């Protein structure tokens, strides 16, 4: 009987209780995820025995003390978390976890989206992936070379423009996915708007709003990954596996284009993983050829969105006009 167990719900401003959750998580070798907004915890005789958290539409830091495992009790914890999410109108939820938990989360109404490297899984409790794939397949175009680019474009530069031009030349049709997250300096709405304006004259392209299935680094959880060095790699592999196995087949994508990365090692590593995950053949899905395109330079320096942001900060508007298209420049100037 569970009547001696009590649940409570609180948000991340409840410092004392959050501290207790953190201590509890540490006791079961997990970490507190800093982006959690809402917590649930279960206590038995004033001792914490379980917790869980909600960050956006991702359930995180779900933990049950060892002596309470295997009693079906964790289903009560999940019920409390679902209630907390529903109370906030968040019905379509995701969970990152390890493969050994697949069956359990299936019992809670979640379905596997992708499993990667036997280390990490992504699951959702809506059937949105299927819907998303159906919608995508309506935008399918015929051709031998169906290219793809995933971009954040924070904001859209002549570098992005050059990458698209080159890729579009090599493709019968080119699909561009814009990462959907508002953790960037420029909002998703502004970013996609500038991309659409900046590419209005190129005909064989489709611009797609990103989805929950293109995983931004910002929402990727790290609290259960013990080897911190592998975080970036796991993120890259999971994101790329979903792209290869779930997204690309709906559009018959054969190629993926990416700019070379001379500066940032994280991005460079991502590109190397891309060649592996997308390029190598495996029985699950067709492989996708990865083509790196030399980055467009201005005055011997590769154009990047981060340099645009730096120039903006320093108010060097003249220089700015040399590395962004007029549509982006107009927007930036008006925003000042």
């Amino acid at each position, binding site marked *: *009987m*569970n*009547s001696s167990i*009590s*649940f409570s719900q609180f948000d991340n401003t409840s410092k004392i209780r959050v501290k207790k959750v953190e201590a509890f998580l540490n006791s079961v070798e997990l970490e507190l995820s800093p982006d959690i907004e809402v917590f649930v915890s279960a206590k038995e005789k004033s001792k914490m025995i379980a917790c869980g958290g909600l960050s956006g539409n991702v359930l995180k830091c779900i933990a049950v003390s060892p002596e309470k495992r295997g009693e079906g009790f964790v289903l009560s914890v999940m019920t409390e978390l679902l209630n907390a999410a529903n109370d906030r109108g968040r019905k379509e939820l995701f969970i990152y976890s390890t493969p050994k938990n697949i069956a359990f989360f299936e019992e809670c109404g979640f379905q596997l989206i992708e499993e990667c490297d036997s280390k990490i899984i992504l699951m959702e409790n809506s059937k949105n992936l299927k819907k998303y794939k159906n919608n995508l397949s309506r935008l399918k175009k015929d051709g031998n070379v169906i290219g793809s680019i995933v971009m954040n474009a924070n904001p859209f530069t002549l570098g992005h423009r050059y990458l698209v031009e080159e890729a579009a030349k090599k493709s019968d049709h080119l699909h561009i996915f814009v990462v959907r997250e508002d953790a960037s300096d420029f909002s998703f709405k502004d970013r996609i708007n500038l991309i659409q304006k900046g590419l209005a004259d190129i005909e064989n392209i489709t611009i797609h709003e990103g989805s929950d299935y293109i995983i931004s680094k910002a929402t990727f959880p790290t609290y259960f990954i013990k080897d911190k060095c592998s975080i970036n790699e796991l993120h890259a592999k999971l994101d790329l596996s979903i792209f290869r196995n779930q997204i690309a087949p709906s559009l018959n994508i054969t190629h993926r284009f990416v700019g070379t990365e001379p500066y940032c090692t994280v991005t460079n590593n991502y590109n190397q993983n891309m060649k592996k995950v997308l390029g190598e053949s495996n029985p699950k899905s067709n492989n996708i050829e990865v083509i790196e395109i030399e980055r467009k330079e201005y005055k011997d320096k590769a154009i990047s969105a981060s340099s645009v942001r730096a120039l903006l900060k320093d108010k060097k508007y003249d220089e700015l006009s040399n590395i962004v298209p007029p549509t982006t420049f107009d927007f930036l100037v008006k925003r000042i």
Partner: protein
Amino acid sequence: MKLRRSMLFVPGSNTSMVCNAFIYKPDTVMFDLEDSVALSEKDSARLMVFHALQHFVYKNVETAVRVNPLDSPYGLLDLEAVVRAGTDIVRLPKTDTVEDVLNMQDAIEKIEEKIGRTKKTQLLAAIESAEGVVNAVNIARCSDRLMGIALGAEDFVRDLHTQRTKQGSELMAARSQILLAARAAKIHAFDSVFSDVKDKEGFLAEVKYVKGLGFDGKSLVNPNQISVLHDAYAPSQTDVDWSLEVIEAAKEAEEKGLGVVSLDGRMVDAPIIARAKWTLELAVASGMIRE
């Protein structure tokens, strides 16, 4: 007289218990809408119990429901749901005075009249305070709907400024008073729950003790306690043999039209016959003899 040794507490919010409690064959299943149900689940648990009471698996077992107090926002809603759904007994929590019982009786009568229920809902008053214990004698006699009174020990010891112990000396006065009040009013007396489900020896010792005091039965929190309790309440073979003889003698006397029943040269009066019947019922329930 119906056997009421075991009264199994089933939290109205614990679905699998609500669905399965009948399997354990307690004498009475008591659904709880009060303390074991979180405030946010009161409405949902009420509906669950409302439907469970009407389900065929509970047609052949006595059902009781502990409702929330009438002065809470849930009490009347609970009451309407369970009286409509046909519960046999309503357990009235925290009964301090005769008025508490009469108020509950009035509320039940109104509902029964409204819905045209003819089978009278019975009442079980849980006494959980010093005031209630002091008033027990009057409470026990105040309503013909009252089938029994029960001790609620957790709240009672708090009210007494003490806590429960294994020996149970803190409950001595209350147990005696409740038992005397029930016997004087010719209704059932029930002992409180024993909540440490892991302590089987402690539970058995308490059961033997309250059986010795004269209690008809006990509220239980865990289905595993049922068989232990029933075994402890099983009569001895000697009692059963003797009771069979008593009943036989009584039958014989009746057939012969004798006014007085005698056995082994001694007179057997009505209370003894009633007691023998009860012993045999226990023996049947314990599987010692067939009906």
